[in-house]
């Protein structure tokens, strides 16, 4: 084994000498592998970053939360909107019924939203999202309150004119002033700010508490009809920990059908949406993107593989004498085969590693200069290395095989 390593070292030195002596040839040879690995791994890194961001956003919707809505979350051009247009919207009154009839719920909340101008003194912000929710909103959506507090049960149930505002609104509307205890004006009504959400940053769906105002639904319902379709009403139900989503959906379907008195043969007139539906939709998108990455990089790697095979054939030709001497001294075919295969793999790996370094450099630039969350993951590094090794093995096999199959008396041919 030590002998083999040493002989391999001799091969590697020889190969390195050839690489150094023919820099342009080597560069052109490795370029295919480098570009291929760069293309595949950069696409994968972008997809990973996108996936991470989207999955994080989906997770923020609540993996075990079911959204009872009028419209189902579906994608595609064949969305049968005409089947849903006449459905009733979820109503605040249904919230109490659901809570009463369902045993496996941890929390259930009614939400509706609109956009309005928010005023404070002579300052104002237009088209701010006004989210109105029932009391258990904090049990379903995770957020932190940096300043102030959440609604008390009394404020929620009695519909007091209190509000929680997003960090950006606090910053733009109040500047240096502490918003808590101040009065803002929305819907032409005075509302007291009792808390400010901690800055979250945008997620991929724009779901963030940074730019919204949260009001108790009982308060808003007293002057507008929150059940109206234009306020996008929804009931969010979160199951207990030991119940899975399928059970929760079955239970909610039965409860909703019972509340709405739907005949056994009739279709549901509501949609039960869940975050996992979105995950499934995005899985398909990611698969397509990854296939595209493989196709783009695959062609380049194919060219690179031919380049490596070419350089290996030259290498075998140049070293016929050494191969012959080794064989004349008893080296077996596999010994020669392994030497050349290893060399091909090393060459390919070199190309792959340059590609990975390029991806790393670009990720680093994108992250530090453009502020993108792009990262070269260990999984992608391993993928790049594995692909390089496999290409090296495939491309090097035929030249290595031809070297291994050389006539054992080649040494004498070159020697005499």
């Amino acid at each position, binding site marked *: 084994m030590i002998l083999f390593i040493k002989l391999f070292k*001799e091969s590697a030195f020889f190969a390195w000498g050839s690489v150094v002596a023919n820099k342009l040839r080597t560069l052109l040879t490795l370029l295919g592998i480098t570009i291929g690995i760069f293309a595949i791994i950069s696409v994968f890194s972008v997809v990973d970053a996108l996936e991470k961001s989207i999955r994080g956003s989906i997770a923020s919707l609540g993996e075990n939360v079911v959204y009872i809505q009028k419209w189902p979350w579906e994608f595609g051009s064949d969305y049968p909107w005409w089947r849903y247009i006449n459905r009733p919207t979820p109503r605040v009154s249904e919230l109490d019924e659901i809570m009463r009839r369902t045993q496996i719920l941890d929390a259930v909340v009614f939400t509706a939203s609109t956009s309005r101008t928010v005023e404070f003194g002579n300052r104002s912000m237009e088209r701010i999202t006004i989210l109105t929710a029932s009391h258990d909103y904090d049990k379903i959506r995770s957020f932190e309150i940096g300043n102030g507090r959440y609604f008390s049960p009394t404020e929620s149930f009695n519909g007091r004119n209190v509000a929680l505002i997003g960090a950006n609104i606090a910053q733009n509307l109040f500047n240096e002033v502490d918003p808590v205890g101040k009065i803002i004006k929305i819907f032409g009504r005075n509302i007291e700010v009792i808390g400010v959400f901690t800055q979250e940053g945008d997620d991929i769906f724009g779901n963030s508490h940074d730019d919204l105002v949260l009001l108790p639904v009982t308060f808003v319902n007293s002057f507008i009809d929150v059940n109206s379709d234009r306020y996008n009403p929804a009931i969010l139900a979160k199951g207990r920990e030991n119940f899975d989503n399928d059970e929760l959906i079955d239970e909610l379907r039965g409860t909703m059908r019972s509340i709405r008195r739907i005949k056994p043969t009739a279709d549901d007139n509501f949609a039960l949406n869940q975050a996992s539906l979105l995950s499934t939709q995005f899985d398909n998108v990611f698969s397509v993107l990854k296939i595209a990455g493989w196709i783009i990089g695959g062609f380049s790697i194919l060219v690179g593989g031919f380049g490596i095979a070419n350089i290996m054939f030259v290498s075998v030709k140049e070293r016929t004498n050494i191969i012959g*001497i*080794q064989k004349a*001294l*008893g080296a*077996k075919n596999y010994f020669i085969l392994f030497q050349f295969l290893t060399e091909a793999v090393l060459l390919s790996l070199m190309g792959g590693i340059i590609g990975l370094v390029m991806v790393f450099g670009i990720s680093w630039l994108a992250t530090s200069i453009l502020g993108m969350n792009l990262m070269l993951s260990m999984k992608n590094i391993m993928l790049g290395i594995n692909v390089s090794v496999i290409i090296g093995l495939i491309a090097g096999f035929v030249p290595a095989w031809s070297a291994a199959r050389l006539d054992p008396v080649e040494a004498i*041919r070159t*020697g*005499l």
Partner: protein
Amino acid sequence: MIEVKELKKSFGELNVLKGINTTFEVGKTNLIIGQSGSGKTVFMKCLVGLLEPDSGGVFFDKNNFTLMNEKQRTKVRKKMGMLFQGSALFDSLTVEENVVFPLEMFNKDMTRKEKLERAHFCLDRVNILDANHLYPAEISGGMKKRVAIARAIANKPDYLFCDEPNSGLDPQTAIVIDRLISEITKEFRITTIINTHDMNSVMEIGDHVIFIYKGNLWWEGSSDEILTTGNKEVEDFVYASELVRKLK
């Protein structure tokens, strides 16, 4: 022992070997000499199986190598030691590792210790044991030849083929190497065949010399006989140098 019977080889219209018959005996240094283009290289290639003769045969201990299949030939090749022109050592291996190489390749049953012992024995025999941990780049041309000889005899060969063994060496070192080959040949009872142009080698170690001329075995005999053969072509070759003519 190697016997050559009616060995013929031609390339197209050109008859290079025209029916050679000779015997290379055990424990003797057999030298093949001849002018360039005489056919001695083709003859040597036919002996080791590099070229297939058109007719005739080469017999290694009565076994016809020409008729053997590849498996049988491999067995015979295991008994061959090769001394290549220019030593052909592996630069990345130490002297010791170069000698161990054929043992590693051919002898799976030997332990590492046994292989090292054998390598040390061979190196000791060629008086270079002290250099066992040096690399080829660190030793002289003569020492490299000694290592190559040690490597060639590591597997205890029955037949030793040498191609210009003292090419590139100064006359004194060349004689030392020639003598070493001759001693080893007798000591280990090897059938040694040397392809050479060097008349010094012929005179020093030529137990059996064959002179090939225009594809024929023109003359054979011992080194003592070659000076007085009376054969014009042999004398032209032997006395090619002005100095030797004057000495004669």
